[in-house]
């Protein structure tokens, strides 16, 4: 625990959710370490069937090993819970597949430290760096931009980005309430319900180093229906709260 206790000066934790990412996770940990030296790195292993856990440990990360597979939301929330319990002020999530360039972590952290928002989204579209997005995902992003615009009351350019930083206020919220299956879009609505603010900063995205995306072409329709329903339910909660 001592190695994970937040240092007084800078209380940032880098969170890497990973499921069957043995080919990429070690490299991601090393890249994070060179981008933000001395920052604790926590890999949350979602009960991988491969050597994700040992590769992450060998690369020098602490590993939170889930006893059974929870899916992305449950996996990220476990990391948020631990970070909250250990007293971290900021948590930045970087995916374990190598798609997020860790050199942008300082940009995300700087935006968080400004203090004018609770969440920062690393966006591939702020500086139009979305060239690694496939057509299906690009269409989904355009669709969900349109869905979220009236709900959030402002545009969001990259609603499906998992490159996310949160401060302690959002960390407390997400420790208690976090969408479980496809969390990125619903998390924005959860944030809006609490009148929390978010900003987008430009981040570099790359093709994944290994493994496959959890959202395949076949699952895309299920994804859209699931996320729309989740957004709708959260909007209903929002309306009820305002009354």
């Amino acid at each position, binding site marked *: 625990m001592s190695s994970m206790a937040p240092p007084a000066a800078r209380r940032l934790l880098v969170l890497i959710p990973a499921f069957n990412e043995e080919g990429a996770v070690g490299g991601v940990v090393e890249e994070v370490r060179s981008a933000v030296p001395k920052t604790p790195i926590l890999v949350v292993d979602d009960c991988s069937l491969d050597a994700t856990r040992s590769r992450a440990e060998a690369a020098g990360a602490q590993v939170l090993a889930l*006893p059974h597979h929870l899916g992305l939301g449950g996996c990220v929330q476990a990391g948020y819970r631990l970070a909250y319990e250990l007293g971290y002020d900021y948590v930045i999530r970087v995916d374990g597949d190598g798609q997020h360039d860790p050199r942008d972590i300082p940009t995300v952290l700087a935006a968080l430290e400004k203090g004018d928002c609770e969440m920062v989204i690393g966006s591939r579209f702020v500086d139009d760096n979305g060239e690694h997005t496939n057509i299906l995902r690009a269409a989904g992003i355009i669709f969900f931009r349109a869905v979220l615009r009236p709900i959030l009351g402002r545009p969001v350019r990259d609603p499906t980005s998992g490159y996310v930083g949160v401060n302690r206020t959002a960390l407390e919220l997400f420790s208690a309430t976090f969408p479980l299956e496809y969390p990125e879009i619903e998390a924005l609505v959860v944030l809006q319900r609490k009148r929390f603010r978010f900003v987008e900063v430009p981040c570099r995205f790359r093709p994944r180093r290994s493994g496959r995306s959890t959202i395949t072409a076949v699952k895309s329709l299920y994804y859209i229906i699931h996320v729309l329903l989740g957004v709708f339910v959260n909007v209903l909660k929002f309306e009820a709260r305002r009354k």
Partner: protein
Amino acid sequence: MDRLFDMVAVFSLVLIVWVLSSVRRAHIRVEYSVSWLLAGAVLLVLALWRTLDDRIAMALGISDSFIALAIFAGAAFLIVLYRLSLRISGLNDSSITLAQQVAILEFKLKALNEKIQTPAR
């Protein structure tokens, strides 16, 4: 038409016997068997007591008493399935929280053990 009612009665009996047998072998917990047994019993009564079906059909303005029975059966199973969905959702939430807590406690325990062992080295 009588054959349809008989088939429902047989189906209800099979359901009741099947559920009771599962409870006896501890495949289903007693509290989860109640909804199924109740649904089976109601269906059995409705399948055997035709005058009751006729009265229900008349009250609902349905000409065919078997359709009234089918509506009842459908509603009963939908209610049972809804109750089970509620229960499964609750158990799923509990299971996720439990898994996260176990992982966090193991993490802390490991860190604590490392801390204890460090001075001895």
